């Protein structure tokens, strides 16, 4: 099953490679990984999307907790959460496609953030599923380039990951 893990980790050189190394050494999957500092500059927050059986996810969580620099790990799947991913997608936009592209972007609440004679670059935010659906909805031949950030997640309501 797909799981989304939130990790609070010391913002130190090499900390990221410990996490990534752990996944590769133990044969766990990383579907996506995002990381950046938080409002507290000494801490980074990481979101890892992974998949595996419950046993594997339990081991991943325990192994992550064992890393000296990891402060906290939560499995967002354990309760309500929100996840968002951003995608930048550059598409061919010429002739009658130009209008069609604009319409599609609107339907998915995307924004066109760069325009040339022949292309649009669309910024789209949402769940990973939604971004996938947008790609599916397009004719593959018009897609020139896509960049996705990978999912970031946060618990709903009072559920807070903090020191």
């Amino acid at each position, binding site marked *: 099953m797909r799981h989304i893990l939130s990790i609070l*980790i*010391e913002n130190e*050189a*090499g900390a990221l*490679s*410990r996490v990534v*190394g752990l996944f590769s*050494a133990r044969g766990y999957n990383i579907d996506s990984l995002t990381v950046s500092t938080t409002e507290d500059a000494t801490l980074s927050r990481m979101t890892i999307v992974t998949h595996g059986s419950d*046993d594997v996810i*339990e*081991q991943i969580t*325990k*192994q992550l*907790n*064992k890393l*000296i*620099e*990891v*402060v906290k790990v939560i499995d967002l799947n354990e309760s309500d959460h929100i996840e968002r991913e951003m995608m930048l997608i550059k598409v061919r936009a010429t002739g009658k496609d130009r209008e069609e592209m604009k319409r599609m972007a609107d339907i998915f609440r995307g924004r066109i953030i760069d325009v040339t004679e022949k292309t649009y670059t669309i910024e789209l935010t949402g769940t990973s599923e939604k971004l996938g659906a947008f790609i599916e909805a397009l004719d593959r031949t018009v897609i020139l380039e896509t960049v996705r950030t990978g999912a970031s997640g946060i618990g709903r309501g009072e559920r807070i990951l903090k*020191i």
Partner: protein
Amino acid sequence: MKISGAEIVARCLQEEGVEFVFGYPGGAVLEIYDAIFQQDKFKHVLVRHEQAAVHAADGYSRSSKKVGVALVTSGPGATNAVTGIATAYLDSIPMVVISGQVATPAIGLDAFQEVDMVGITRPCVKHNFLVRDVNELAETFKKAFYIAQTGRPGPVVIDIPKDVTQAMTEFNYPESVSIRSYVPAGRGHPGQIRKAVSLISEAKRPFIYVGGGAVLADACEEVRDLVRLLNAPCTNTLMGLGAYPATDRQFVGMLGMHGTYEANMAMQNCDVLIAVGARFDDRVVSVPEKFLAVPKKIIHIDIDPSSIAKRVKVDIPIVGNVKDVLHEMLALIRQTNVHIDSIALEAWWQQIEEWRKPNSLLYVQDQEIIKPQYVVEKLWEVTNGQAIITSDVGQHQMFAAQYYKFDRPKQWINSGGLGTMGFGLPAAMGAQLANPDATVACITGEASIQMNIQELSTCKQYHTPVKIVNLNNRYLGMVRQWQEFFYGNRYSESYMDALPDFVKLAEAYGHVGVRVEKPADVEPVLKEFFSSKYKERLVFFDFMTDQKVNVFPMVGNGKGLDEMDLPPHMRNNGGGDGDRDYGNLC
């Protein structure tokens, strides 16, 4: 007053009460060696290979209650140390390894003798540091020693660039350290402990399975109390040997791949299992499903949550320091006057005695060829069971574990997790330095000993009179055994040809060597050379042993604990050694 980074390194080691640093100099650590030269609080032991420095620090730690310390230079010094670090990591040994690094401006430029030590060791350390600022040096040492020896112990690497050892700053060694992201497990959840005790009270076939965690946590007294209080049978893992005394009636021997019949059968057939600082590793429980085929409830006490439910699902996990948890458990058992149903327990013991009766470790010593088991048994007798024994890896290691009856913890030192050939001699050296008055013997094979034989020179220099018991079967015995069992007697590259004359070799290094070929000579030779006359000498015993001997019992890969390959006398066909085709042995 400002002092150099190198002096800070020396001062930190002094502050930590370090007695010995095992190491080897080189360009990147010259400053540190200069600082060592100018102090006399700790001694430096100059090994002949960096791998041996780490194993020696490891043996020192395993035979004492202290953190081992090794010091190596950058590049090849650092990479040579990696096998030692991984060995310590897999057995959870507290250790600090200091490696030199090229100067910070040169890092990343493929400088002379540059390797990414932090990157190379990341998967085999508890933690590692690259110190880029001299002002962080003292605190890093404090943290390293703290991390190495708390929680589940392990090796910590401190990589120090040369310019950091030259930079000057004030020295302040922190009194204490706290790391917000590192909080070792504490006492164990009282609710879980209560549940465990209530489960124990319902047991009919209880079994206590004790691993290296009990030795590391110094919890062996508590283990003894528990075993005796419950009158339950007890087994130790390879890493746990000595945690419960082997000569006690309640001890059923080591379990696992080469465990005794009674230990493996009891493990398989118990109804309540208490696992203490053990991790159900694949050499103990080869196939979890087969192990769980006989329904049982499992209590698992371990300081490392990730050890729990890693291979085998348990019913009552208790995360905490093993010593503290057992202490609480014992108090509760006494307080609530828990007793196991005595009729059930008696039947269980009867069953165990039945399993014990055929003696799965039986072997026959004839007049002609020395059996390796016989040497270990005689060694045990001659040393009154009191020696500290290190070993290498192979058949001899298993014979040492099976036939030397370890009665106390920290008496048995072997590379259980990584299975590192070449561990034995340097580890013995470290153990001897930690225990100058003890008898220290290294049980080894003619192949393993050659992997760090150069340390005979270090032993000469530092007067470590270890006794090397070489069980010389002219084979990579354990490899040969697998080839015999599973590869149709095709002994591919497992014959040790062109062996040196070990007696002359020992003598060349300034030691005593003795070759023993006849069974009748084993005991007298051991007696003579373990006598006080040779107390100050390193003696290399070269026992010419039977080439055909196999280690039994054996749980083959993919087999259940009750599907052991048994020694000849316990096989249904009546056995006799003649039923095996050995093929053509050299």
